[in-house]
Structures are given as C-alpha cells and as structure tokens.
C-alpha cells in the first residue's frame, strides 16, 4: 500500500520539483533584478530633478541589473525544456530524484542572480550619480556595475551545466 502511494507521489512530485526549480530561478533572479533596477531608478530620478537630460545616460545604467532576470528566465526555460514540461511537449516520467536534481541545479542562478542584481543596482545608482557630475566618465561607469554581473554569469553557467548533465528518461 505504502509503496503504491510513494510510487503515485513520485510520478507527481518529480515534475512538481522541476517546476519549483524553474519558479525559483525565474522568481528570485527576477526579484533581484526588479530590486536592483528600483535602487538605480531612485538615483536616476534624483539626478533628473537637477537635469532631465540625464535620463538617457541613466537608462543604460539602470537597465544593467535587469540581465539577471533574463538569466533566471533562461535557466527556467532550459529546466522545463529538458524535462519536456513546456507546452506542446510530451513529458516523460520524472522521478523525485530527477526533480530534486533539477531543483538544485536551478539554485545557483536563483541565489547569485538575486543578490548580484541588488548589488549591481547599488553600483548602478552610484555610477548614475557619477555621470550626472562627470558625463565623460560614461564608459567607466558602465563597466563598474558589470563587475557584479560576473558572478551571476558564473551562477548561470553552473546552472546550465548542471541542468544539461541531468539525464531525463
């Protein structure tokens, strides 16, 4: 009886864990991006009170923390694509262990995306203030926040490598 229940649960829990992993990757990386952009937005609005022409240069900088959300989306899509849980695909049987593996594989980008986007937002905010005073420093100002993104890229890479290493029957 118990084994029948566990077997039935396994059939449901595997896909659920995959979906949880994809949701965490997209959700956390997305929250981080929104948070980071929000921080940068505050600085952008501040410098625009002095000179509305700062809008265009600020726009480039405040878009930077948005990339982590895209990385999260990428991992989410790969997780669903690999386990054939995307619309229009025939999903195979996914075991609990496969589901857990996919869930864990989604964590690097969920965590690094979330935190690095917030710190990148803070760097962007500081750089927005910099270019409002010294517009000629735009090139350097764009590079500084990109430094934070490196670790989200490593998280993304690890998530992708883990996901593609998981064999789904």
């Amino acid at each position: 009886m118990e084994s029948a229940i566990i077997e039935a649960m396994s059939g449901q829990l595997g896909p659920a864990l995959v979906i949880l992993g994809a949701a965490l990757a997209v959700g956390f990386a997305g929250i981080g991006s929104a948070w980071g952009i929000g921080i940068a937005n505050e600085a952008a609005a501040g410098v625009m009170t002095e000179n509305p022409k700062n809008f265009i240069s600020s726009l480039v900088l405040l878009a930077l923390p948005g990339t982590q959300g895209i990385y999260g989306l990428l991992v989410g899509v790969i997780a669903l694509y690999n386990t054939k849980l995307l619309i229009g695909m025939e999903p195979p049987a996914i075991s609990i262990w496969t589901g857990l593996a996919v869930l864990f594989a989604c964590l690097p980008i969920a965590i690094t995306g979330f935190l690095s986007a917030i710190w990148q937002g803070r760097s962007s905010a500081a750089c927005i203030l910099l270019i409002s005073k010294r517009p000629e420093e735009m090139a350097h100002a764009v590079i500084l926040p990109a430094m934070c993104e490196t670790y989200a890229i490593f998280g993304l890479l690890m998530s992708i490598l883990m996901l593609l290493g998981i064999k789904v029957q």
Partner: protein
Amino acid sequence: MAIEAMQKIRMALHKSISDEMMNAIQKLGCCQFIPRDNGRVAEKNVASLKARARHLDELLSDVRLASRFVEPYVAKKEGGMAKALGGLSPCSVAELAELASEREFLSSLKITRDLEKRLSDVKAGVSRVNGLISVMSPLSRLPYSLDFYTKGTASVQGAIFQIAANAAEKFMDALESSMGENAEAFMLPAGEKESARFVSVIYARNASDELQQALSAFQASRVEIPQNLTGLASDELSRLNGELSELGLQEESVNAEIAAIADKTWKLCQYCSDRWGIEKSKLDALIEGEQTEQIILTELWAPKSCLNAFNDAVKPYAGLSEIMLVEPDEGEKPPTLLRNPKWSKPIEAIVKMYGIPTYGGFDPTSVTTPFFYAFFGICFGDAGYGLLIACTIAIILKKTKASGPIANFLKIILIGNLCAFAFGAITFSWFGDSLTSFSFLKPLGWLKSIQLLDPMSDPMTMLVVSLAIGFFHVMLGLAIAMRNNFKSGDRLAAFGDQGGWIIFLCGLVMFGLSSGGILGLPAKLCGTVAVFGALVLVATQGRGKKSVVGKLFSGILSLYGITSYLGDVLSYSRLLALGLGSAAIAMVVNLLANLVSGVPYIGILLGVAVFAMGHVFGMVINILGAFIHSMRLQYVEFYGKFYDASGEGFLPLSYNTQYVKLTD
C-alpha cells in the same frame, strides 16, 4: 596600430601678422599649442589680446543666455540625433562671418533682453497676485471691510487668527472668558475637511493685553492682510482675479512676441556661437605664448606627417616669422594622436573611452578590433537579429549624412551585427528557434546545413570555445606587455614577468590537453615546460627583495597569481552565457507567439504582434549586454595586462564647430 610621431615647434611671429598666420594654422587643424609660463610677460604686451578675449567671452555668454531663453519657443528645432544623422549645414568661414554679425546679434540681444524683462515682470505679477488670492480666499465671507483689520478705528482694532480646527472652539471660549465685552469674536465659515479655522476678533484697543494673554495658551497665528487691500474681501478677490486674467493675457502676448523672433534668434545664436568659439580658441592659443611688445613667442606640437602642410601654410608669413623644430624638454611628453587604418578606426572611440595611450606606447586599437567584433557577435549571437540590425544601420548610413562619433558608433554596431549574423548562422539561431517553431518557415530548414555549433543542446563545446578564445586573448595581452618591456629595454621584466607566465600557463594547458589525449604531445614534455615556466617565475618575481629568503618567498608566492589568470579566462564564459541568453529570450518569444496564434479570428495578428514586440525587446536588451560585456572583456581582462593609458589626447587648434560644417 600606430601613434603619430610628434614634432615640437618653436615659433616667433610679429604681431602684425599674428592674426592671419594663426588663421592659416587653425585652418590646417594639426597644431596643438603648448601653454607657456607667462608670469614674466608685461601686462601691457598682452592687454589688447586679453581685452579681445574678454569681449568674446562676454559675447559668448550673451549668446548662451539668449539661446537658452528662446530655445523653448523654437518651432523648427532639430533633435540631437536628427542633427547628428542629418549632418551639419555646410558653410564657408567667410559665409559664417557674414551670418554671425555682431551688430545684428547685439540688436537681437536688446530685443531678447527686453522681452525677458517683460516676461519676468509679468510672471512676478502673477506670483504676487496668486499669493494674495491664496491669503484672501479663506476670508472671502468676511462681512467687514479689510481696512478695519489693517488700520482699525481710534478705539477698536480688528484681527484675524488662523488656528487648528480642533482647537478653534476652545479658543473662542477662552476669548470670551478673558475679554468679555471688550471683544467680539466669530469664526469664519469653513468646510468640514479643512484643518484650519479663521477667527475674526474685534477688540477694544485698551484690551490688547488681555488678547495677548488669551492667545498665549493657543498656537494661533495672526493673518497679515496687505495694507493696500481696503474693501470687502469678496470685492478684493474679484479685483485680484481680474488682475490675474489681465496678467495672463499679457503673458500670452509676450510669449507670442518671443515665439515670433525665436527661430531667427536661435539660428543667429548658433552661427555666433560657432564663429566666436573659433575666434576665442585662436586667441587663447595666442595668449598662451610669450609676448613682447612686437613679437609673440609660442610653442606647439604637430604630427611629423603634417610638417610639410604646416610649412606650406606658414610660408607666406616667412618674412615676419621664424619657425624652429626643437626637441622636447626633459620629461616633457608630447600629446597622443592615434592613426589607424579605416577598418579599425571606429574602435578608437572604445579605446579612448578607457584612456589615451601614452606617447611612444602601444596603441591597442587594431588588436582590439577583431576581438571586440567577435565578442559582440558571440554575445548577441542571432543571425536574424544581426541581419536585421545590420541592414537597418547600413540604410541609415547610406541615406543620412552621419559623421563623426555617431557614424563611428553606427559602424561598430553594423560590423558587430554582421559578426552576430555569421555566428547566428553557424549556431542555427534565426530569431531564436523560429525556423523550427513556425511551420511556415520550415522551407528555410536548409539553413541548418551550415550549423557548426549547437550551444542550446551542447553548451560544453561552446564553453570550451569561449574559454579557448579567452585563454588566447589573455596570452595575447601578456605577449603585448612582453613586447612593450622588450622595447623599453627591460628584458628581465619581459622574460620574467610575462615570459614566465606565458610558458607556465601554456605548459599547464598543454599538459592538461595531452593528458586527456586531445593533444598529441607527450604529457611529460608539456609538464616540463610548465615546471620551467614556474621556475622562471620563482626565480624572477622576487627580484625586488634584498634577502635570498625574501626573493625565494616572493617568487614562490607569485605562483598564487595563477588564480587571477584562471578568473580572467573563466570570465570569458560570459560569451556562452550571453549568447544563450539571447537564444532563450527568442525561444520564449516564439513559444508565446505560437500560443497566441491559436486564438480564433485574431490569432495570426496577435501572433505577429507578440513576435515583433518580443523580438524587438530581445534585441534591445541583448545588444546592450553584448556591447557592455564585449567592452568589459577588453578593459578588464585584456587591457589590464599591458595597456598604459596615461597619455594626453592631441587637441589641435582647429575649426571646432557645433552647428555648422565648415567647408574651407
């Protein structure tokens, strides 16, 4: 890939020809004047030049003020982008001098200042009347004349107090109990939601002490009524509203007058700004020279390749001038002028954004060019996006007269997108997976035959390619640093600091590859190469230390630097990550477009809209990331190895105009 050789020139010219000669040099546009110590120059020798410069400064300041004033009223104002793409209107120096007449500008300035004063008076009036209206509005139902509250009578005085709504009743009670028949107080009607109440108090002048006593317990403030308001508050309010309407009409009329002259004045200001800007830069260059009563002694830098043209330009003034080619002073560094071939010229802007190469150093423009475009192509990585953007930019460049930095930027994006097209083609990414997602695009499936890589299903190969490119790029950076050290004569640094690392790292990689059976070399040999490189590092990296132990310790510790090289190479994994990011967004867009296309009746339309908007979003987001990260890989991982960007840019005296393009 070259920095222009500079020649220092010393020039003595008679003041009578200084203006003409400087015009010729400015027209040539290849000489940067060197500021000299003018402390010893008698003030009378430069007085006339300085007076002219001051006059021009004043004129330019007036031009800025006038153009700032009329700018909001200009009807035919070109946007910055339109101006950059449309090119500047062509004009000769003589035509510019004619267009920018000082007399015409001064008369236009007089009109502008008059209008500015009238407008500011009207606005001050509006602000004053609005202030009075805001004071009087709550008092509109006051039954007595206002002079009763401002002047009063011989024995009675009126006053109005503002108090918080929740304390108003208590205030009334306090007034009644403390002043009795000496005062008559009533509260002006107010809306229930208003937080303040206005209380009118008419009191006997001899009871003012009792009033103060009653007031002391409350935070009531006395409303100051202007002395010139004497009638009933309601009458005064209507009069003020009438005055406000009158002022509004006046403002409209002044605005119409400004709008009528705005276009002409704006254009005139642009011509004057360019003409006097040219004149001012010429005067500044002259003032920087050493002055005697008759002679100006000055020094300048000119590229050696321009010396013939320079000699031709100054030849007509040979009788009253003397030119000497001199050596730079000790420790004096000439400015840096980059001279690159056409194919790498646009990338100069990216190099300069990092910093200007020091004179005599290495200009990394040409070596940056292929890597920047390749990185951009890999990061953007979609053939459809690349082709679409490249075609759009090619049309813009063909149809418009874009020039200068904008044209360079567009060329960078154009070539970068051509690389993205090529990379997308070999990874079979055409607007993501659209060729397999949409059945009507199946006939284009033959494009799969040119696919060489599939990063989505086989990212490991692409990761290895990215890291291999990164390793090569980092090694190239070290090789350039080694070449720089050799050139400067520091052979030990070249061999130890860069050679050691190149041997060590290449040895390690070869050892790994041959151990894994990928490279057909004996692993032992490769290992020996790596050990040799490590020994070179241990032997040379502590050479700054005095003791043998210190040298050995520093040398061994330097091997820890391998972690920074590992980090640098791993950083190139972003090429794969960003490329995959573009593909994933495109894939999601295609998926959504496919989903909505199933909606009855409007499905196709919705599908097309989602496809178009989604891919435009993808293009904008990814092009930004591709540009920034391609730039970052150059700045941080590559330039960090060798680039000395402490040079000063070459800023020649030239026709530097903002609004017209001089044809001379």
